[in-house]
């Protein structure tokens, strides 16, 4: 299975990734390899097999509705590339 350029562009856009012509070529190769590898799994007959969604066999791991400790406001904002005393700041998303 070969990944075409349009699919690559679409996936790159959805993942907000940008690369030049050369890297795009390399990326196409890598992704084709990955797809081929995953393709191998399709050889297996999975009729009637429930999809595996978690690695653990546990179910109903739930919390009671109780408020716990919060992350300190300052600590929460610490790693933000841009911030002020109250908010995370991001490039304007609305005109």
């Amino acid at each position, binding site marked *: 299975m070969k990944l075409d350029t349009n699919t690559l562009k679409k996936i790159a856009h959805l993942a907000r990734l940008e690369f030049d012509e050369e890297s795009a070529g390399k990326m196409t190769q890598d992704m084709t390899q990955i797809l081929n590898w995953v393709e191998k799994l399709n050889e297996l007959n999975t009729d009637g097999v429930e999809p595996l969604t*978690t690695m653990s066999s546990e179910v*109903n791991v*739930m919390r009671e509705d*109780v*408020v*716990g400790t919060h992350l300190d*406001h300052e600590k929460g904002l610490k790693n933000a590339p841009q911030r002020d005393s109250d908010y995370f*700041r*991001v490039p304007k998303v*609305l005109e």
Partner: protein
Amino acid sequence: MNMIEETKVKTLDIKVKNKYELVIGLEVHAQLLTNSKMYTADSTTFGNLPNTNISVITLGHPGTLPKVNKRAVEFAIKMGLACDSEITRKNIFARKNYFYPDLPKGYQLTQDKNPICVGGQVPIVLSSGEKKSIALTRIHMEEDAGKSIHLAGEVDTLVDFNRAGVPLIEIVSEPDMRSSEEAYQFLTEIKKLVKYLDVCDGNMEEGSLRCDANVSIRLRGEDELGKKVEVKNMNSFRNVARAIEHEFERQVLLSESNTEIISETRTFDATSGTTASMRTKEDLNDYRYFPEPDLSPVIVSEEWLKTIQDNLPPLPRELFEKFVLEYGLPEYDAGVLSDNKEIALFFEALCHLTTNYKAASNWVMGPVKSYLNELTLHIDDFPISITSLASLIQLIDAGKVSYSAAAQKIYPAMLLDPKKDALEIATELNLIQESSEDSLKPIVESVLKENSQKVLEYKSGKKGLMGMFMGQVMKKSNGKADPKVATKILTEILDN
């Protein structure tokens, strides 16, 4: 483009419009009234300082693991049961992937293939009296996003994550509605239900209830659905109705001018009452859903479901039916009384203490509600006990006090001094009616004696004088004569 569309709208002919059928489906998001968030223990309290109800999970830090809030699941099930939905026994969560600054993880934790509630219906009543049932597609659980703040003159967008992760249910209807009124009634019923169930405060202006409308048109008689347009950003039921009306006209005009209707997302502008396209470029609506590997499945056991079912409060439509069928009330009364759960339960309790249901209804819809409205009080803060109110109704029914004395004198006095019971106040205020014939007869006789000339006129046919005699009797008895008894004595004497 939009400008041209909007001006054309005004010239739409009603006959042209009638050629088309309006088709509406709604998506309603309800913020759940839990204490903590959907997948973390952060508080959901509204109005705290920005970015204080946060945790590493909310902020999407690597290596953190979400954990489901049990009560949020129960709230979703409650809503499903109230809408006759089928409850999914094995629930798997899903990631909905997209980038937006208010979504720190890069995906929303929601449900995709197996929503917790499947199908169901919401009955509505239209102003014409017509009854209709709106089918639901699904109700699923998910989390809210943070809040982006765009300030004028500010170069950046500010983001507050207090709301990120607050539990939501999304209620999705089938494209079953055919008018803006039906959409409005559907929303009214949803709001009533979430409030009855105590799962959401139902406040659309504050955003705890949000609605997107999918609107399309087709020629009448056509089976196939038209291209749907999703309209967002309506902050009241009325604006949902306005947005739908506008969309209807806009789409009819496009169709009439042979212009293709594009399946797109549009935003409603409340000032102009119009909608505008939100995205100019073609929309890459590819959310790449996949099962959430960090959350184990939630299995709804028979036992758990039964506990939730058993604790379900009475539903508005059940109370409505009971009020009409069992208490014999007019549908109007039943509608007003069942509109609000607390009022409905107050009325129910009152009806356990009196069998004069219509009088009970009149008291609750009239004096009780107007007192609450005037002081913007909740029924829980109503000072008079249900027992006292029932005994007041009893006093009137027994002819001990007149309705007007009860409503104008005793009831206000009870509000001021709720500890005293109705009879006590009536006695103190000297309002107990004289209803024994023995004591009223001499009063009537003396009135007639003093007005012998009028009695002759009455007997010669001036029957209208009866009112004057009654007035005199009331005056002489200091307003305490029971009008029914007094009339009876008067008629007996005069007509013999």
